[in-house]
């Protein structure tokens, strides 16, 4: 039987706690609201000797990820954390981390990006880097943030995957929201993550390797293709690790979580903390006889297209809640991918997009109920009206 302890933790505290228990070899990080606390708490652990991690207080996020790349290539288990402008500054090197197949784990706290500068939650930062070759896990609450961090290490380091992984929370909503969560014992976490065995560490001076070489037209494509293969291998690994985690600690993880979707006629799909709010809306509607359901997406990269299509195939009308805007006149990223995932279904549900919550604009149960109301109308009339709408904005 595993030791379980209930404790009150914010999302940031939960992620820092997971990092303490993982006790990585190297952490290189730079502060930014709302992720600052994670590295602040962690550097406290370092100062107090609770971990023996080497902590590099770098001078920017670009250098944070650059140092993570160097350390990971050297053969160390490496973690960092950031948000918003920090993730954007890292963008160049995020691609290098995945291109070099380095299993770095990043605690990302979703926050709006400038301009205007804004420190509150939306998903623009993480979505802007969705094609960087990183595995992306979204968390609904502190518990999931904690559990995702621990699983991220195993997913990233799996030799069939070997890709960096970010576990994300929603800025302030989760990062600073206190919740009762179940902690796993240090010992159990250590056993679960195991020891990192790098395949080709740079530090092996007896067998020198050249890392980060230049590819011309004759090899670049093959190397980029191999990254795609790593990503294609990821679903199996994520599923296996999610199950193993559940078997050991009682909380099972997959790619998505369905809520009352079995007989649903109208459904909402969303990521992160909004799922909690949407669940309440579903319950309210169900009590009024509306066949409403909810799809929460945990894994955005790799994108579980088939699973989503399979789950949503019998729904009549779907609203995707996008907490970032693609600014393409064609909806947000989650909408586009879900809609595309449904394309091959023999009879396709109707799909609309709602851009919501930018810069931390609250979303209320009533807002979501209104979306379901519109979905009911769509499902009855068979007409979607506006494909993309903005929820909760003053026009």
């Amino acid at each position: 039987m595993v030791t379980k302890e209930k404790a009150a933790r914010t999302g940031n505290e939960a992620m820092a706690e997971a990092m303490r228990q993982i006790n990585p070899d190297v952490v290189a990080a730079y502060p930014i609201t709302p992720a600052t606390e994670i590295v602040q708490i962690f550097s406290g652990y370092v100062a107090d000797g609770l971990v023996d991690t080497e902590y590099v207080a770098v001078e920017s996020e670009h250098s944070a990820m650059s140092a993570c790349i160097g350390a990971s290539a050297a053969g160390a288990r490496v973690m960092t954390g950031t948000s918003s402008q920090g993730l954007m500054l890292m963008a160049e090197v995020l691609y290098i981390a995945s291109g070099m197949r380095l299993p770095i784990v990043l605690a990302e706290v979703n926050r709006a990006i400038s301009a205007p500068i804004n420190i509150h939650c939306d998903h623009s930062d993480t979505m802007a880097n969705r094609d960087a070759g990183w595995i992306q896990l979204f968390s609904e609450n502190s518990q999931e943030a904690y559990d995702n961090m621990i699983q991220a290490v195993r997913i990233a380091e799996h030799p069939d995957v070997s890709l960096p992984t970010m576990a994300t929370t929603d800025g302030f909503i989760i990062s600073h929201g206190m919740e009762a969560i179940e902690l796993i014992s240090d010992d159990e976490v250590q056993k679960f993550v195991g020891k990192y065995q790098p395949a080709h560490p740079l530090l092996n001076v007896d067998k020198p390797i050249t890392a980060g070489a230049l590819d011309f037209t004759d090899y670049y494509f093959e190397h980029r293709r191999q990254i795609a293969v790593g990503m294609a291998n990821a679903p199996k690994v994520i599923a296996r690790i999610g199950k193993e985690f559940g078997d050991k600690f009682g909380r099972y993880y997959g790619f998505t979580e369905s809520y009352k979707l079995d007989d649903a006629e109208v459904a909402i799909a969303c990521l992160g903390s909004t799922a909690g709010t949407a669940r309440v809306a579903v319950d309210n509607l169900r009590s009024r006889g509306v066949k409403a359901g909810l799809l929460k997406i945990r894994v955005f990269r790799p994108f579980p297209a088939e699973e989503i299509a399979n789950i949503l195939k019998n729904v009549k009308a779907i609203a995707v809640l996008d907490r970032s805007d693609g600014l393409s006149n064609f909806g947000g990223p989650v909408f586009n991918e879900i809609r595309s995932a449904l394309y091959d279904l023999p009879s396709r549900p109707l799909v609309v997009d709602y851009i919501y919550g930018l810069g931390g604009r609250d979303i209320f149960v009533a807002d979501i109920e209104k979306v379901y109301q519109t979905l009911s109308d769509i499902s009855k009339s068979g007409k979607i009206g506006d494909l993309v709408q903005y929820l909760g904005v003053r026009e």
Partner: protein
Amino acid sequence: MANIKELTKKNEPLSGGHRACAGCAAPVVVRQALLASDKPVVVGSATGCLEVTTTIFPYTAWNVPFIHNAFENSAANVSGVETAYRALKKRGSFDKEVNFIAFGGDGGTYDIGLQSLSGAMERGHRMLYICYDNGAYMNTGIQRSSATPFGANTTTSPAGKKIPGKTQFKKDLTKIIAAHNVPYVAQASVGYWNDFITKVQKALATDGPSFINVLSPCRLGWGFPPEETMEIARQAVACRIWPLYEVINGTWKITFQPKEVTSPLDWMKKQTRFRHVFQPGNESILQKVEEQVEKEWQELLRQCGQA
């Protein structure tokens, strides 16, 4: 002091067959630097001529562990490697003694990578950063950098009808790094191998960060015949446009005094990048160069307590 007989017995750290131009000084800088280490070396490099000419997949010229990350992050990258080394050593999963050397061109060091370098120096990683300064972005086709000398013709400071080449003097990076108060900082020239190797040895023996700025002539961007690389590198020292000195724990010392001091204009005449400044009407450029070289030399003497 380096012993050339001993050096020739060492394993070649950088093989031939790489794609640097004939007469390129950069690979010579690397070989001299790596031969100076008596421990295994792990090397990092910024994007630039050195990196692209030595690591064309599936080949590599590097016989030592080598990592390239991006253009502006050679120092941060090697910071990470060095930190991993300390972490793994502390935990008993690695037991060798290793030296860490980060290379960057002048573009990757004076300009886009200055922040990354400053951070790494300030944090105190035990690493040697070597800037091979060829005075422009050569890899992308000879664009000006803040290390390009006054008056030089580059593709982004072209000698035009109105503007005669670069209008700013070179940034004094060595002094900037010396102002970080790191234990060892030096300026060297690839033309004086013994001076350079000795400096690398001192740098690697330092318990902390060290920095060497080494003049690395580029025959393509400077415009001289490939067999004259070393001569050009030595003449830069003789004319005091590139003095050789070191700063050990804050104490400045000139490490090489040319027997015969020549004019910077003679050095410039040998390079086509300065051809236009010798045209009639550009006399003021020549005068400014001479004045600046003299001014900087006097400042250096003052710093060395010799003025």
